[in-house]
């Protein structure tokens, strides 16, 4: 027997539980998942805060990724409450057990004076450029918008900074600051892939800017053409969301650590030697800092840099991309960072090993005591550092607050 639209609607109403906007709002406050099944232009015009967007036309294909738990309570809504009814039927066919449809839809929601929000809308070009990100539920347009508003500082445009800069730029990180005072040398090109043969002799920050501009015009590059030292570190790092440590000296690593902890900025750290690399993420007060991991650096003969010891070009490439991965997770607030874990990589064995790191309760920079003193506005006393603690940044984070944007300070 042929069915009419009215028949189908009647069957859907009989089969699916409906909730009105006021009931739906109560469920939302309890943390129930909301799925907006309207088409993209409708979603972009405004939606219920926290809702996930899976348009009716892609429902069967995408709902399992958006709502993996088939027994989780879910409220579906559309514009007026019809498409969400049919969508709920489709979800029941997929085995979802607790799906309700919101009667009256988004129109009814707005008429009831309930809260709604407008998503950041990406341009047509951005939707194409970042389409592979937009397809991932954990990123989506909200995550992409977040990346576009993010500011990441790279310490060094060398072996680690080159691959990470390119991938972070490609990912649409809106502002990339680069601290480097060096010029491109032909011996850099074996691994520092952001630079090119015809730019040998150019400043690295300018060479990096050229490559990034060619890759993604959405990215603003802020060039800090200076050596990171005690006098400028607080000024340079202020305002950035995450710092990627790709430096090659211990002095810079310790100064950066002290200033970043004081400023509360996460640092994604990596270092390399020949066929090996180390990687971790320092999130102030959540995990250890660089001084907790290495209270003091080894003597020079135990820790030669790449220019002395050499390095297989792909090793900083691999470690730099793992750093970029950590940066993206921190910016997007997804996944589990390496805070409290040191990942070591051995290229010859193709082996990763994970070691457990801890906050040093006596750390002069990030211990609870040091934090409390910092919050009282006190300068840490040099006496609180062990006698062999290197490169102490005097008064780290306790001077006048540095204001202004990274751009204004470059």
């Amino acid at each position, binding site marked *: 027997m042929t069915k009419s639209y009215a028949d189908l609607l009647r069957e859907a109403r009989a089969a699916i539980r409906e909730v009105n906007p006021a009931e739906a709002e109560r469920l939302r406050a309890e943390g129930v998942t909301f799925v907006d099944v309207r088409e993209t232009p409708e979603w972009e015009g405004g939606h219920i805060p926290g809702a996930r967007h899976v348009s009716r036309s892609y429902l069967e294909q995408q709902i399992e990724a958006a709502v993996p738990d088939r027994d989780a309570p879910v409220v579906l809504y559309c514009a007026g409450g019809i498409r969400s009814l049919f969508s709920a039927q489709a979800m029941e066919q997929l085995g979802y057990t607790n799906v309700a449809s919101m009667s009256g839809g988004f129109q009814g929601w707005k008429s009831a004076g309930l809260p709604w929000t407008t998503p950041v809308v990406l341009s047509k070009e951005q939707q194409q450029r970042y389409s592979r990100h937009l397809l991932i539920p954990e990123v989506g347009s909200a995550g992409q918008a977040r990346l576009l508003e993010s500011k990441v500082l790279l310490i060094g445009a060398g072996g680690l900074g080159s691959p990470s800069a390119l991938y972070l730029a490609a990912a649409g990180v809106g502002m990339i600051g680069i601290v480097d005072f060096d010029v491109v040398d032909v011996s850099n090109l074996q691994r520092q892939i952001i630079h090119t043969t015809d730019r040998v002799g150019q400043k690295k920050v300018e060479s990096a800017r050229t490559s990034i501009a060619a890759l993604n015009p959405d990215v603003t590059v802020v060039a800090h053409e200076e050596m990171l030292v005690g006098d400028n570190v607080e000024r340079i790092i202020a305002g950035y969301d995450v710092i990627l440590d790709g430096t*090659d000296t211990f002095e810079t690593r310790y100064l950066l650590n002290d200033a970043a902890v004081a400023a509360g900025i996460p640092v994604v750290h990596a*270092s390399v030697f020949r066929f090996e690399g180390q990687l971790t993420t320092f999130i102030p007060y959540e995990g250890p800092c660089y001084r907790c991991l*290495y209270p*003091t650096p080894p003597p020079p003969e*135990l820790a030669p840099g790449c220019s002395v*010891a050499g390095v297989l070009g792909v090793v900083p490439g691999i470690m730099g991309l793992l750093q970029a991965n950590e940066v993206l997770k921190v910016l997007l607030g997804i996944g589990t960072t390496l805070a409290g874990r040191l990942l070591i990589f051995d290229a010859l064995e193709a082996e990763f090993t994970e070691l457990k790191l801890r906050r040093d309760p006596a750390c002069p920079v990030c211990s609870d005591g040091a934090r409390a003193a910092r919050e009282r506005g006190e300068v840490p006393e040099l006496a609180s550092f062990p006698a062999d603690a290197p490169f102490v940044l005097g008064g780290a984070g306790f001077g006048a607050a540095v204001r202004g944007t990274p751009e204004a300070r470059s």
Partner: protein
Amino acid sequence: MSTVFIPAVLRPAVGGVKSLALDGATVGELVNALIGLHPGLGGQLLTPDGELNRFVNVYVNGQDVRYLDGLATPVGERDEVRLLPAMAGG
């Protein structure tokens, strides 16, 4: 026998091997056994007072011995001990 993993920067001092199987009931006994075989490592691993140098981290099964019992940390058969100094390169 425990396996002691040698970082690349120290391998020239142990004949180029990546790891050694050594006898010892504690981290200190293993370190001393290692130095006994390869005296050149002594100054790099231990201070003149016989303490672990603070620039070399030692992990037993992935745990930093500074937060266990230092050189007195017990080591069992088949445990993995890893020496790890900081790296400079970037």
